[in-house]
């Protein structure tokens, strides 16, 4: 029997890059990605779940996703409305556009963290990992049609969450915790 550490090292060799990319996408922060990669492998090294996991990559994927969204929830991000003074000059609409777009991405990810675990995982697998419903179904042991429906409902729910955020935003600032 290979020891847990061997399994974890093998996982690092085979899927380290993929897990790093996943954390990078979900945190959009290089420092957080680096820290969470270490935290992920500490957890895997110390967890009995690693020994019990039939599919270690799937277990690591879920743990990484949880860590990333926990990290997002811990961030007390305060977003202030852009003031006139902050606006870029005429030559820089792209800069403003990029700023707004970046904020949108953060908001969408923060909203995703508020979905329940299954819905969140399916959304990440489908829209960020860009897997087919059949691939997701195999990983999660669920019916692809059910997952398709769940994805669709999750998008509606995400829109609702974003609207709730917008209401808060109109009060001056929003805070995620």
């Amino acid at each position: 029997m290979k020891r847990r550490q061997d399994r974890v090292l093998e996982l690092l060799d085979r899927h380290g890059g993929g897990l790093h990319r996943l954390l990078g996408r979900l945190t959009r922060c290089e420092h957080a990605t680096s820290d969470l990669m270490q935290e992920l492998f500490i957890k895997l090294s110390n967890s009995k779940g690693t020994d019990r996991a039939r599919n270690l990559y799937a277990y690591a994927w879920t743990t990484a996703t949880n860590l990333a969204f926990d990290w997002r929830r811990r961030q007390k991000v305060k977003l202030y409305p852009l003031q006139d003074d902050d606006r870029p000059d005429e030559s820089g609409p792209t800069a403003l556009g990029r700023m707004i777009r970046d904020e949108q991405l953060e908001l969408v990810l923060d909203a995703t963290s508020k979905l329940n675990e299954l819905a969140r995982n399916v959304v990440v697998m489908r829209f960020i990992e860009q897997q087919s419903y059949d691939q997701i179904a195999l990983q999660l042991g669920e019916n692809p049609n059910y997952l398709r429906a769940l994805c669709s409902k999750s998008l509606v729910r995400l829109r609702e969450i974003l609207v709730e955020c917008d209401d808060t935003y109109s009060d001056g600032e929003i805070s995620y915790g």
Partner: protein
Amino acid sequence: MVDMNEKDIIGAFQRIAEYKPGEDSVGRDLQKVRDMLTSQHARIAPERESIWRIIMKSKWTKMTSAAAVIIIAISMSFSLFTGPELKAAELLAEVAKNMEKLAWVKTISKSYVPDKEEPVSTDIHWTDVRNKRVYAIYSEKYIHLMDYNLREWSVYRPETNDMVVKPLSSEWTSPSDKIEMFIKQLEEVGVEVTQSEGQYNGKKTIVIQYDETNNYLGDNGPATNMMMGGKYVRTMRFKIIIYDKERLMGAGEISYLDDEGNVITTSKSESQAIETGPGDIYELGVPRDVKIINKVPSRKVKEIHQKISEHKSRFLNEYIAVITEARIKDGKESISEGFVIFCQDKKLRVDVYKPLYGNEDKVTGLYENQLDASLGQLKPFWPDEKKRGIRSVRLYDGLWQYILEVKDDKLTAREKQRRPDGDSYGDDDLDDFTWRTLWWLNDPEHMYEDDYSRQNGLIAMELTTQSLHGRLPKRQVLYVDPEKDYVCHRYVNEKLIDAPWQEDKGWLDAVENKDRLTEEVNYREVIEYGQTLGGQWYPKVITEKGYRHDYGANKYDVNRIIRIHLISEHPSFPEGIFDPGRLPEVGE
């Protein structure tokens, strides 16, 4: 700004998916993790406690108690050995024989870590051999009593001044029996024992020494994960010191070594036969006014458990069966899992088939020879071969568990696991479906009665638990039919947010991530019974109804049906069905 429609949200996800980290940062981060993993485990451990504090924790005390049993056996101050050329096993057998005469044994075990002269913990055991009781004080603080007659285990915790009394599940084994088992184990494992001469307490001694390497796999995974002080224990080094002239046992030692052969800790024990020991646990220092938390089920509950065990032990030990589980939608059954079971005493082979959901089956056809027997049994109950495919093959040969799962379009073997206690799955055998028990965190169940049990002549037991660490309050109810071999007729499992039995009604306010909560309600009920040729009952058709409700979100109904088809009793099994050598990959 955040007025985004679904298309915008998908677009946002696509932009997130476009993220590609710089090669430098990936390489740097992966190397950092690799360095961390390959360095000392103590550095990986997130806790920053000193080594001896970690050793003091529960795992350590458990192991010390196990080690003490052996050390009790090997460090008795008796003249036990007669011949000068006796081998270690024979010497120990003599010890075992003489220990049968003892009434009480007191053992003091001290554990040491390198670079520290004083022991980091001291444990004392008093074994009352005649009354089958073991008293213990661990770390000079925690007082235990294991009463094997009453089958109760009392644990006094000074911090909270309470004493938990819980069921004792293990069987009494006398010190002499333990030595016998120990010798047998040594013979089976085939350890290499070395004998040498030495000095102890100024006397010439014979030192018997051997190493046992951790490769046993238990319920909780490989024992190579045994950790002490943040380090994996790879080797246990046993040392028995015998006075040469008197042929007396001098002392016993067990050292725990890490992967690199460094001693993590050493336990040294000395035992002595005593005429009498503690009369009760209070004599060891438990205050008389201690708060007692009773987790022992009532006598009636124990009786029902006993009945269930008796009937379960008499069930068929050889059979072939097929179990299908199906979802029901609009009155139509859609099979979600099919099990083909071959059972012969402890040996068990289960081939698991799953629906393909429209995908092409590239796997089953590759293993026609190996799956021929199970496919033949499954076909009458799940005929459409285009809709199902092999998912996994599980084989337990009485000692080793082999598991093959579909991966990369082929059956791939997971590492085999040694399971002396039985196969690792709780839902593979027919008797797993037929007899069930309630269990949750060692809380005791109690006898229960409601309209359903009264109207159906059933005996019921209930177990409720309060919300713990943000988990939902849970309730389980087991209804057994005394007229049908105490078979589980109905099983209720509820995890509710607004649970009537939850005492602290404000528990939800303290939960940080409520969106992770999911209410679950399941009612399993037998709607049709079968009987074996010997007249024993088993469930033929079980329904499962209920729902899952994600907090503040979607609710999903559960409506399933489980059909159990007992194909044959005491059958002639297909040749090689329990032979791991014939499994794909394993046999290659």
